């Protein structure tokens, strides 16, 4: 249907076609139904995208959990029941030492005794030694959680065939022992204490460096710097830096912190007994550089979001720029700044590449004791374990991933709690 609109009292407009709109009830309803249908298609597409993401995440979690728990087949060279008529757990320290002496070669015994006299070791230590050197209990095969639960019979049959002397046992690869034991080249005796401590040290130092520097830079850029081309150039480049691949930061850290600043990062300049620059401090400085753009960008956004009416109120009372920033802008922007910092912290905790370049060791037995210790970190350890040939390393890698996830979640939860406290105050 064509419509012609009258021009009222104005001069009549020249005759032109004005097109047509659906006009009968049926036409209007059909048109609306068609538009609705188009919207519904998009809605399903969006829901599908979300479902895909959730599915991928769920699969990841399942894989990790599947690897971290399940049945394991143990074998031992000597049955512990043959060593004593009582169980090893009930024996006293001198009895255990006696069993150890009787079952290892004289040379091996002397070696352990020289390391630390056996008489001085605790009963647990000696028992561990017996398990390690005499019983030689080891995992010869392991099964994932899914297999262990659903195909139990098949697993038992396979074990009986391939490992006649083997014992099938449930095993959780994440355990208190796993958390508290140091590195070991034997996967079932390996723990992640050093990696966990290394990660915690590194994250703490990284935040200590990156947070104040990042927030200070953001305040300068937002509140003090003018709009000169020079400042705009700096701003653009900070945004670009956020997109630089992390391995390049690793190279930078290697060149500057590990090599050029070695006296400082090894701690020798400060009186510590550092060996080289491959220390927690170097790693933390590198990570701080890596997350600095993230923190600066998010802090700037948060500062910019502070309403100008708040600034004007403060200036209107005769406050200086610094008083305005300190008393009003920063407290209001803090929740937003913390959100960005949480993201940066998670990034620092999970990065692997720069740590490997900067020189995280993969095998460290002693705990890191300060900024100048050599170190390893959880992601580096996981990377290392997944590249080992033995199957069991993959199980403990899965367990380590769970620990890393738990560490990340608890760090984030702590930061979110802190942020909410500030929100309530303002």
């Amino acid at each position: 249907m064509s419509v012609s609109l009258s021009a009222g009292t104005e001069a009549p407009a020249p005759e032109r076609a004005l097109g047509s709109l659906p006009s009968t009830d049926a036409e209007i309803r059909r048109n609306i139904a068609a538009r609705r249908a188009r919207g519904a298609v998009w809605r399903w597409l969006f829901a599908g995208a979300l479902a895909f993401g959730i599915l991928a995440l769920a699969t990841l979690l399942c894989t990790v959990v599947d690897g971290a728990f399940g049945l394991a087949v143990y074998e031992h060279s000597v049955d512990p029941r043959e060593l004593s008529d009582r169980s090893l757990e009930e024996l006293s320290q001198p009895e255990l030492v006696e069993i150890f002496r009787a079952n290892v070669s004289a040379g091996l015994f002397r070696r352990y005794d020289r390391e630390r006299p056996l008489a001085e070791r605790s009963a647990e230590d000696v028992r561990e030694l017996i398990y390690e050197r005499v019983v030689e209990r080891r995992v010869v095969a392991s099964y994932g959680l899914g297999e262990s639960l659903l195909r139990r019979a098949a697993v038992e049959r396979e074990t009986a065939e391939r490992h006649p002397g083997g014992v099938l046992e449930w095993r959780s690869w994440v355990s208190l022992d796993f958390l508290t034991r140091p590195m070991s080249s034997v996967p079932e005796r390996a723990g992640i204490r050093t990696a966990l401590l290394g990660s915690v040290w590194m994250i703490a130092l990284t935040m200590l460096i990156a947070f104040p520097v990042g927030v200070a830079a953001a305040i300068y850029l937002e509140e003090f710097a003018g709009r000169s081309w020079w400042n705009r150039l700096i701003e653009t480049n900070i945004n670009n830096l956020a997109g630089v691949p992390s391995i390049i930061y690793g190279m930078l850290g290697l060149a500057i912190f590990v090599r050029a600043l070695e006296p400082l990062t090894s701690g020798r300049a400060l009186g510590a007994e550092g060996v080289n620059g491959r220390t927690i401090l170097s790693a933390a400085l590198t990570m701080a550089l890596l997350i600095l753009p993230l923190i600066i960008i998010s802090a700037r956004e948060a500062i910019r979001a502070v309403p100008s009416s708040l600034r004007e109120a403060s200036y209107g009372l005769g406050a200086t720029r610094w008083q305005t920033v300190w008393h009003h802008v920063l407290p209001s922007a803090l929740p937003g700044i913390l959100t960005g910092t949480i993201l940066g912290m998670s990034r620092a905790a999970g990065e692997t590449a720069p740590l490997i370049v900067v020189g995280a060791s993969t095998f460290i037995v002693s705990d890191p004791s300060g900024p100048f210790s050599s170190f390893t970190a959880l992601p580096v350890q996981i990377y290392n374990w997944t590249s080992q040939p033995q199957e069991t390393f993959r199980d403990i890698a899965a367990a380590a991933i769970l620990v890393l996830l738990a560490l990340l979640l608890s760090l984030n939860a702590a930061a979110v709690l802190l942020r909410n406290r500030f929100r309530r105050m303002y």
Partner: protein
Amino acid sequence: MTVAQGVSNGTYAIETRDLSVYYGSFRAVKNVNLRLEPRKITALIGPSGCGKSTVLRTLNRMNDLVPGARVEGEVLFQGKNLYARDVDAVEVRRRIGMVFQKPNPFPKSIYDNIAFGPRINGWKGSKADMDNLVEASLRGAALWDEVKDKLHESGLALSGGQQQRLCIARALATQPEIILMDEPCSALDPISTLKVEELMFELRRNYTIIIVTHNMQQAARASDYTAFFLMDSDRAGQLIEYGPTQQLFTKPSDKRTEDYISGRFG
């Protein structure tokens, strides 16, 4: 340029001479000459975009905060040009207080809202002195009776009208010599507006008040002097007429003033 007809002689609270304000290359205000009487209420009126707020904000150098803003001419306050090289904008704002269009209390307690100004300006005294100062400021803004039992609750929990009076109390606490008000009632309901106007009459005894308003009734009933601004052909704001409110509203000397106050445009 019409200047100060019928304005009494003597010293002025503040005076502008050939004041022009630029935002970048755009001239927002052109050659304003205005002499403001001490302890009176002067209203700046005019249609949107005529530069009345800009003029107000140049009086305590609030425009310094706007990137690209530039001022030509002079603003004389106690015989000194506020835009002279050796004048500190912080000192200007400390002595010429401001109340804004939208109530903007700090997200702090009522008490801290008032105490902030004195504290940052180097106030010295005991806790009891501060209590007295807070009470005096709130009484000065006719807010004391309403908030005396909840001084440590957030200033944001108050109603819009109360918030605006809190902002006035906050400005009073630093004991300014002039109070600038930028459309202080535009976000308020009529009853709150009335309260703020009554308050202005009270404050007139001790302070010079300059108020920007786009409400002509408000200018007519609540001011002693009125200045009328209008954009000229190149969109720069100009002072058209300035005089006692009574005279400007009943016998305007400029045709454009008459057109505006009789509602023919704007």
